């Protein structure tokens, strides 16, 4: 019974943890300001999309994307589109790519990097930022990817274990 609610519950916890971790950023490294953007939720949703159900991940993506937009960004429609889109792409790769944990980790990081780049061009377009792409690479993209890689290395297997538990439970219910 509890397992059933664990997947949405984990998503909610990650959603609420993201801004708390964002309080630690930016950090000064070697006289350079480095931004670490926590992307826990979307990483988790990519895992859900690959190991569990694409449809479910897209629905979660829409809901949490909307919450994210309204609460943090104040531009409604940005993450509401990006989150489900990323989940959709992740879910579609299942047919072509082997679902080993390492490969999934790599794939999720590539997708997050893609999302960051799309966001950068969006914010550049609406004049929220003026930094050139090379600066964006050095101060945001690379540190963010490294930080999120650490997060996934620590918790990726937990996600997989959790989702597998739910998949097994559902299989048992159906038989």
């Amino acid at each position, binding site marked *: 019974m509890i397992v059933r609610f664990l997947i949405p519950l984990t998503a909610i916890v990650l959603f609420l943890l993201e*801004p708390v971790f964002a309080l630690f950023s930016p950090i000064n490294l070697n006289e350079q*300001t480095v931004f670490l953007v926590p992307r826990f939720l979307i990483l988790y949703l990519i895992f859900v999309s690959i190991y569990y159900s694409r449809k479910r991940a897209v629905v979660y993506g829409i809901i949490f994307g909307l919450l994210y937009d309204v609460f943090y960004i104040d531009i409604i429609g940005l993450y509401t589109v990006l989150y489900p889109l990323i989940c959709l792409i992740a879910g579609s790769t299942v047919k072509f790519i082997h679902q080993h944990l390492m490969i999934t980790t790599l794939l999720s990081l590539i997708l997050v990097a893609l999302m960051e780049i799309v966001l950068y061009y969006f914010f550049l377009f609406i004049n929220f930022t003026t930094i050139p792409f090379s600066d964006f690479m050095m101060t945001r993209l690379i540190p963010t990817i490294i930080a999120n890689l650490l997060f996934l290395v620590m918790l990726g297997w937990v996600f997989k274990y959790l989702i597998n538990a739910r998949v097994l439970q559902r299989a048992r219910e159906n038989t």
Partner: protein
Amino acid sequence: MPHFSNKKLILLLVSMIFIVALISFSLRDRQNATLPEQFIKDTVGLAQGFVAKPANYITGIFNDINSLLNTYEENKRLKMRLEDFAALQSEVNTLKSENTSLRDIVDKESSLREYVPIQATVIARNPDQWEEKIILDKGSSSGVELNMAVMTAKGLIGKISLVTPLTSEVELIQTNNPNFRVSAVIQSENEEIFGLIEGFDVDRNELIMKRIDSSLDVKEGELVISSGLGGIFPKGILIGEVTEITTDDFGLTKMAYIKPAADFSLLQDVMIAKRTVITIDEHEDIKNEQTEENQNVGE
């Protein structure tokens, strides 16, 4: 490859148009939140508060340990400053009493300097740090209003940019927003030098203060405080310290780089300054509209 039927294609197009409309709508009107937005913000804010409090507690412990390690060094430094402090304290006391007696003489009760502080806790920082913004756990039900000054014990950090009943959003002074201006004063040795803080230099991590009269002599290391003349902020909030002075693009006025006094990386407890002197809000609105118009012309 996914196969699209006609129906799906139309749905996709309609939703794309809808999303673009939503984005442009929310980009235009950024001063007020609509009712459903307020509802979502308050609900998420409440949940966020539950998570943020223990998290703040834990980071507090780490900070305590960190400061414990530096105790010896700090103690030495503080002891040196303690003697100065006693002298300063007596001077402040005499100045204060003199100030009140002078005020009594001229019958002037209200001052731009006075404000009522509202204590608030930071519950979140915008996770994708494109816009420098933090969210506080106090809203209009606690008396928070738009455009109020927000500061830490060290100095000014920003102003309230959006209020819902239970939460409020702070736009930090490190913003790229060209409409974010703070009327400020450089405390020179024998006079006050006025200027406007507008803009933030990302490379140097410093604020830019413009429109300083070029005949006046500004020195490095002088302190900058808010002037209270902008109509929103109280007077006397510390903003930072002058690090470099140059002439501006047209060579008519001076421009100063200012190192912010507040530390922006780990914000936890902040104060919202509610100015006690009555201000005329309509005037502020007109000014905002004008700057917006100017910007449109510029584009």
